[in-house]
């Protein structure tokens, strides 16, 4: 049986990833430059609100281009690895879903209990068992309760 090929996404060329990131930052610089161009320049000796962000955005675009050239000139390449893509995506997914649901419903306590329990369950490498489930629910309840008592009840931060 042939060995399974790893996911291409979990191992990316450092140089390629650098180009992508530099392009991303070039685009951010360009967006700031365009937005700053719509602002007043100031009159006479008065320095306007566009002055500083415009200079910074030009410098950012120029540095991104320089970064691309220096990356291209590097003779050696390496890999940027994501060793456990499932765990990473699951963690990001739980966090994003939690924030979205919290924004929509405003229910911090039940949602945080759920998020902590799901994270614990997904990230605990032990096989599924009743013991693991009880442990997960107990730790989740304790974590959420401690945070609720400290931040909501003691420090008055309304959650």
């Amino acid at each position: 049986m042939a060995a399974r090929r790893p996911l291409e996404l979990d191992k990316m060329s450092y140089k390629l990833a650098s180009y992508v990131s530099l392009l991303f930052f070039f685009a951010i610089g360009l967006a700031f430059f365009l937005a700053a161009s719509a602002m007043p320049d100031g009159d006479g000796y008065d320095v306007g609100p566009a002055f500083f962000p415009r200079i910074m955005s030009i410098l950012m675009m120029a540095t991104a281009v320089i970064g691309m050239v220096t990356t291209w000139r590097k003779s050696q390449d390496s890999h940027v690895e994501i060793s456990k893509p499932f765990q990473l995506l699951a963690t990001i997914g739980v966090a994003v879903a939690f924030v979205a649901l919290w924004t929509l419903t405003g229910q911090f306590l039940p949602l945080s209990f759920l998020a902590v329990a799901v994270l614990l369950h997904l990230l605990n490498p032990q096989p599924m068992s009743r013991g693991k489930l009880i442990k997960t629910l107990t730790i989740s309840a304790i974590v959420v309760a401690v945070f609720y008592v400290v931040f909501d009840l003691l420090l008055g931060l309304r959650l």
Partner: protein
Amino acid sequence: MQALFSFDFSIIFSFQSIFFICLGVVLGLLVGALPGLSASVGVAVLLPLTFTMEPLHAVLMLAALYAAAEYSGSITAIILGIPGTASAVPIALDGHPIAKAGHPGRALGYSLTAAALGGIFGALVLLLLTVPLARIALRFSDPEIFLLALLGLVSVVGLGSKDIPKSIISVLLGLLLATVGMDVFTGMPRFTMGTFTLMEGLSLVALITGLFAFSEIFNMSQGDLGKRHVTDAKNLRVHITWAEFKGVFKNIVRGSVIGTIIGIIPGLGPTVGSWIAYTEAKRTSKNPEKFGTGEPNGIVAPESASNAVVGGALLPLLTLGIPGSATVAVILVALLIHGVQPGPRVFIEQPDLIYGIIWGYLLANIAMYVIARFTTAQSARLLTIPTYALLPVVFMAALIGSYGARSGNMFDVAMALAIGCVGYFVRKLDYSFPAFILAFVLGSLLESSLRRSLMISQGSFDIFFTRTYSQIVIGLIVLVIASSVYSQWKKSRAAKAGGAE
């Protein structure tokens, strides 16, 4: 200077001050000892605890936490040979062989003594230099403030980066994001996309939480999630004899001096400090061949340096409002949240607060020694907690931190999460988080001082070159750039020589 000694000491010897110092120390010992968590993550994650505190208590707790976490990061390095933080790598080289030989308590004793003395040395320098420096800083005007902020950014790019263009981009991104919000000169909204939420600008707490906490959560999810480090509690009594202390005293002093100087220079931090101190201890040793095999001087030099860095890094924060490191930037946030803007004026407006921080920080280092001496064995047991169980705790703290900083702002939570995701990926590509955070913190200061200077000089840049203090700072900027260019040239020459062989 007289005010420093005529300070009302009942402020820091109050029950609350001592309680928050001890709490900071205990939390720092826990955070530093936990696998995968560093001082910067700890300070960022525990920032929400300070939202409702008095500013003095908030800063004392975070500074005590920072100092204690720097020490307890060495516990894993010594007991397991796995450095918890980058600054603990040289400590592992000599600390772990001593522990393996059956004397972990002795190795930890060297480490704790050096950490406490390094911290106290940094605090004494803070005590002696803040007032004279603040007095000089009061003479600074906008051109000097602009150049000093620029010096901080040049230092963080030039001296502490792996990839210079990427570090410059980190700085520029921080400066650009700092311009989001209402322009303080004209009242005009900038880059707000028509929303009221962005009128106040982006939340520094959300940025810090995203970069240090959320990105760390994603990073931790890639490690060995179920691993428990089994530790042996035998011989964990933290202790060294007087004779052993005398044998390493010189290197404690040397490490403390190096650490304090490194701390004052923005962007370098404890890792650089501990490595320079280690190299220097080895270079000046009569037995350099013993380094790496369990030489006590190889523990004390980097340990005293990494703790002295904290006091050094607080110096530019208190006197100029410029944080010396990303972790100190979080301490700055704790002050800003309470409406306190550090800098020379604060010595006149709120002397009790500033002198309280300085004296309290000295007390925190003494408290760290006493508490750590009796609790290190317990801290070492934290190594048995698997990573998967820590992750939800950091997750909850990060959520609450980004939510609570601006009274329940969901936009900040979403932004922290988005920044955490981007931060996780860009961290792998050698972009600099400290450079980004320092630039964001210094952005408004840099822009406003630049614009005011140009208004005063009617648009002429001569104002930056004609004043004595400005010329001194320009000299320092040139020095930093020259040393950075020289070190890059040396590196590329060494790489070419290596390639030719």
